């Protein structure tokens, strides 16, 4: 049972990393990425190939992050002159390209059989029974680090500029912001995070094959972000954890409901995600938690050097 719990927590952590990436791209910048599954696969395969070549697992993570950042940045760059719907179709198309490449180029990706025997990070540090716990601890550290970095990024001038671009890019460019570079950078950073998620996915399972990267990954990541509240990373933690627990927990249904086979349960799951997405968009587009906003009152408090008011306002922002 502990082992099962650890597995679920590891999957939740990977889902959170993916969610953080989409929250940066879609939540903060308003740039839709329908190729989540494709970029995730790209990261996983890149990390797997690097790690299998003997260059080490850390190198695998770095390469995965860099490749995904580069491809995400390039995709954003192609659609830079046009409105956001073109980015959506380009990312979707890119995801399909990755899927076809992983299926067809057997010499590189092992085709539908995939790549087995991927080395794991920190392997041999602890006994084999405890390894998954160590992996989980490592992932939690990564999640926390990414979370803190993104929180700082959101509150930085860069984060504010990017949100200004999302709300109204004409105003942002009038104020002298380089809209194109902001969008490309933000999308590339999101890509790097997806690459990291992909690397950990590959290391955890120790094998990758094309069937792991279906549209359901894109579906639950969007669901996690919208349930948590677009732009709110804290909300995302809850959103991703809830969605992942529901998805994983529903596997138990198979033992209870015997009339339905595995395919039918999987399709019900996706129907529910689709319905959830639509219902959230209609009835609660802001999600459970609100996005961080810099209020003029908090700026005034900051300049007045009144510690008490500052804390009070900070709490208001956070809520």
């Amino acid at each position, binding site marked *: 049972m502990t082992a099962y719990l650890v597995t679920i927590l590891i999957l939740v952590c990977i889902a959170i990393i993916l969610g953080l990436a989409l929250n940066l791209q*879609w939540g903060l910048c*308003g740039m*839709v990425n*329908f190729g989540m599954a494709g970029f995730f696969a790209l990261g996983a395969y890149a990390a797997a190939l690097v790690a299998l070549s003997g260059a080490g697992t850390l190198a695998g993570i770095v390469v995965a992050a860099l490749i995904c950042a580069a491809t995400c940045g390039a995709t954003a760059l*192609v*659609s830079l*002159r*046009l*409105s*956001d*719907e*073109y980015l*959506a*179709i*380009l990312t*979707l*198309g*890119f995801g*399909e*390209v990755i899927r*076809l490449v992983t*299926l*067809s180029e057997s010499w590189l990706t092992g085709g539908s059989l995939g790549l087995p025997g991927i080395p794991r990070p920190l392997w041999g540090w602890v006994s084999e029974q405890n390894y998954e716990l160590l992996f989980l601890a490592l992932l939690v550290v990564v999640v926390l680090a990414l979370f803190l970095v993104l929180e700082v990024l959101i509150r930085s001038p860069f984060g504010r500029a990017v949100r200004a671009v999302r709300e109204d*890019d*004409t105003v942002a*460019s009038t104020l002298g912001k380089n809209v194109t570079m902001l969008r490309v950078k933000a999308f590339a950073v999101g890509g790097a995070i997806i690459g990291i998620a992909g690397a950990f996915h590959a290391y955890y399972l120790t094998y990758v094959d094309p069937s792991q990267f279906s*549209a359901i990954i894109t*579906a639950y990541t*969007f669901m996690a972000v*919208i349930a948590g509240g677009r732009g709110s990373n804290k909300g995302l933690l809850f959103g991703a954890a809830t969605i992942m627990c529901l998805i994983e927990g529903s596997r138990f249904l198979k033992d209870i409901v015997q009339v339905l*086979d595995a*395919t*039918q349960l*999987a*399709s*019900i799951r*996706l*129907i529910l*995600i*689709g*319905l*959830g*997405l*639509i219902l959230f*968009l*209609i009835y609660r*587009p802001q999600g459970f938690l609100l996005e961080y906003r810099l209020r003029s009152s908090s700026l005034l408090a900051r300049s007045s050097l009144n510690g008490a008011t500052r804390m009070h306002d900070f709490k208001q922002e956070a809520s």
Partner: protein
Amino acid sequence: MIAQVVLNGFITGMIIALPAIALTLTYGILKFPNFAIGAMLTAGAYLAFICNSILQLPLLLSAAIAAVGLAATVVIVDRLVFSPLRERTTITLLVASMGVSFVLENMARFAFGNSARSFEAPIVRSMHIMGLRINFEQIVTAATALAGMLAVYVILRHTPLGRAMRAVADNPALAAVRGIDRERIVRWMWVIVGVLTAAAGVLAGLDRAIDPLLGWNYVVTVFAAAILGGLGNPLGAVLGALTLGVVEETSTLVIPPNYRQVVSFFAIAILLLLRPQGLLGTVRVKK
């Protein structure tokens, strides 16, 4: 050999053209790209499959029922999903359409599983004209697609409904001032979308096997065709679809056939870099 490939490409393009027109009509009137177009196509194919293989109706009648059924379905989907989101941003609508896509596709998967099905159509010997091999299915496809395109053309150009549609697409505010009921126009647009997409679903089902990913495999190509012609331009969508059909088929001479969608993807990418407004589109570049 080349002529045969080009002919096959034209037929593939005809199948793509129908959903591409549907996509471009939706974009013109509601200003959002409908990512559920693939799942709608799949739904149309399965509706026809139910009538044809389970209820044992002839294929033509099945296709007609599927067209009516899908038209009703998309009108209901619009009522439940898109109409409450009408005044929201494009991004919200396109994410919602992705949600619709998940629901429709997986309803088909829930009912029929992942296995491939096919219609019960009579097998007719293919003809040979001037060294070209032409299947009966190809003739049916060409005839249906041409009839669909002609019908859309006549509706848009020569009926009051079409004029109102073009008015709403052009300037919704002005159309409203002139007393055009936008919601009625939108409803009729979805009916046209449903009929065209269901027809494409049946044709695609004849061309390939029917499975839950049938429509999904066309999505990138359909979008590429609509973007190629300039989103919102029905004639452009047809030309874009035919071009892509021929390019995809001829590309199979040099690259493996399963990379067809890759060709479409690069077609969009290159086009967006060189001519972002599409081949026939008007300039709509962001400043």
